[in-house]
């Protein structure tokens, strides 16, 4: 009896819950796991940071905007933003880099005849009097003029369904309007249909008043297992002459895909990072098991290297793609964040350069392509003076 009790006490002492010792006083850099990869190729070019654009912000306008759009017509160069949760579209003239000014501020009401179902989730500045705005929960697109008057509303989805993507508009997943149809990418559907995700590219034809979901098989392997948000699709419009295509970038894929909406033809091109080993990307589960909470979801997502958005620069013969390295939760708790790289190629997908972006300084999801090239928002300059939103030009030597 005594022997049994002794064993029991022994076992209890070792099996009892452990107190989590978290004395995170400061990051011990020497013990941090560093992800090292061999550089697989020698690039012929280097990325340099040059001119800046300084946009004056009024007292109500803050830094972060989920959508940044450059618009150019004749001599006019405009930058359009929509600060987070503001329901306001700001239009700035950036023709003179050192003397930018705000030319319009369109406040969209949450209610009333000029509202578009409450909060706005994104916009497309088609021209001065044709601005498309997407309602936040993705069911309507409103067409407004420069006075903020609603001219028309399009019902692109009737209601939320777990089987289909819900459009999300951002700098890396803009609204596109091609041949009388809107294109969006959006959320990863909660459920599969017959074992497959519905297409992550949503199309709404304004003449037929019809919604369809395209590309439910790409990239390879996404229908096996549960990937959480890792199968997110980013894209940009790739227009050469009258040929309007979409250049697709999936988080988990080394390839870029050129999609022709008219012919439905799809071509893939390898566009792989030399610094980030994306072959390690795994699904959250091989079955359809989902993360139990926000923290588990975040831990999984941060542990995956992933490709982010893509930007097409036809004028300067460039394609830009961002990629972010993986991180561990342990590093995250020490305030250590993974590296972000910018890959630059020509329009024939020949990679010219890949370099690390200073993530303390630059907010890569606030970027745009203008006549000069790729501009990225400089958060550090805003922290120094929050009366200005500053973008720096990234170009190839």
């Amino acid at each position: 009896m005594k022997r049994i009790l002794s064993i029991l006490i022994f076992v209890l002492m070792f099996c009892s819950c452990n107190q989590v010792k978290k004395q995170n006083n400061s990051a011990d850099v020497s013990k941090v796991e560093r992800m090292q990869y061999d550089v697989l190729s020698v690039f012929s070019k280097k990325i340099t940071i040059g001119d800046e654009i300084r946009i004056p912000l009024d007292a109500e306008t803050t830094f972060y905007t989920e959508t940044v759009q450059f618009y150019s017509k004749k001599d006019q160069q405009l930058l359009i933003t929509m600060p987070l949760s503001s329901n306001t579209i700001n239009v700035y003239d950036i023709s003179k880099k050192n003397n930018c000014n705000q030319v319009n501020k369109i406040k969209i009401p949450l209610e009333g005849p000029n509202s578009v179902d409450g909060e706005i989730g994104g916009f497309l500045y088609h021209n001065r009097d044709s601005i498309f705005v997407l309602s936040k929960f993705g069911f309507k697109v409103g067409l407004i003029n420069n006075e903020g008057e609603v001219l028309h509303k399009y019902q692109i989805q009737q209601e939320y369904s777990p089987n289909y993507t819900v459009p999300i508009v951002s700098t890396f997943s803009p609204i596109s309007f091609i041949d009388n149809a809107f294109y969006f990418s959006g959320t990863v559907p909660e459920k599969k249909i017959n074992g497959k995700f519905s297409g992550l590219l949503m199309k709404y034809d304004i003449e037929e008043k019809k919604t369809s979901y395209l590309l439910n098989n790409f990239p390879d392997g996404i229908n096996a297992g549960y990937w959480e948000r890792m199968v997110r699709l980013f894209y940009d419009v790739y227009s050469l002459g009258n040929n309007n295509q979409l250049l697709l970038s999936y988080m988990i894929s080394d390839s870029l895909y050129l999609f022709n909406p008219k012919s439905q033809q799809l071509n893939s091109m390898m566009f792989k990072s030399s610094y980030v080993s994306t072959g390690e990307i795994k699904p959250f589960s091989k079955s359809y098991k989902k993360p139990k909470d926000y923290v588990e979801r975040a831990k999984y997502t941060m542990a995956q290297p992933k490709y982010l958005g893509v930007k097409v620069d036809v004028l300067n013969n460039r394609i830009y793609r961002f990629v972010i390295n993986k991180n561990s939760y342990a590093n995250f708790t020490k305030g250590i964040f993974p590296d972000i790289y910018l890959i630059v190629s020509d329009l024939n997908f020949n990679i010219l350069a890949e370099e690390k972006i200073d993530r303390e300084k630059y907010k890569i999801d606030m970027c745009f392509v203008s006549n000069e090239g790729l501009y990225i928002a400089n958060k550090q300059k805003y922290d120094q003076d929050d009366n200005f939103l500053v973008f720096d030009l990234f170009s190839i030597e």
Partner: protein
Amino acid sequence: MIRILVIPICLLFFLSCKEKNEASVTDVFLLDYLENTFKENFTAQTKAAIIIPNVGCSSCISQLESYLLSNGIFDNKFVLFVFTNIDDLKLLKLRYSKNSILQRNNVFVDKENKLFNKGFISFYPEFILFSNKKIIRRLFVDPKNNDVYPLIDNL
């Protein structure tokens, strides 16, 4: 003999299992931080503190902020508030521009993110309950934790 052994066995069960508090600072550090930050405004009568990261689970944070604003919790001088991990100070000031909330004695804006840099790395706001300047409970304000809002209501 058996009775003598039962008590330590039970103690082993209950004392060894504590609420895990991943990625956050210790009680000792937190008390010290709040003392140094709030000074005479942190007293034996202080009932709670709420630490709100600016960046994290955005729905959790905005839900809590809306709740605190609409229920006047910031008016309760026995509750302390710390805003940390601040990404955009201008936005924070705009959000709390009414009623000078950020200028109150029971509210501290950790502009230099010292609390965050010292280890308070959390996706969620944290609620801390005091009794006579001792921490009696700490809870994350996350979607699965139904205990927090009733505790805030009872302050």
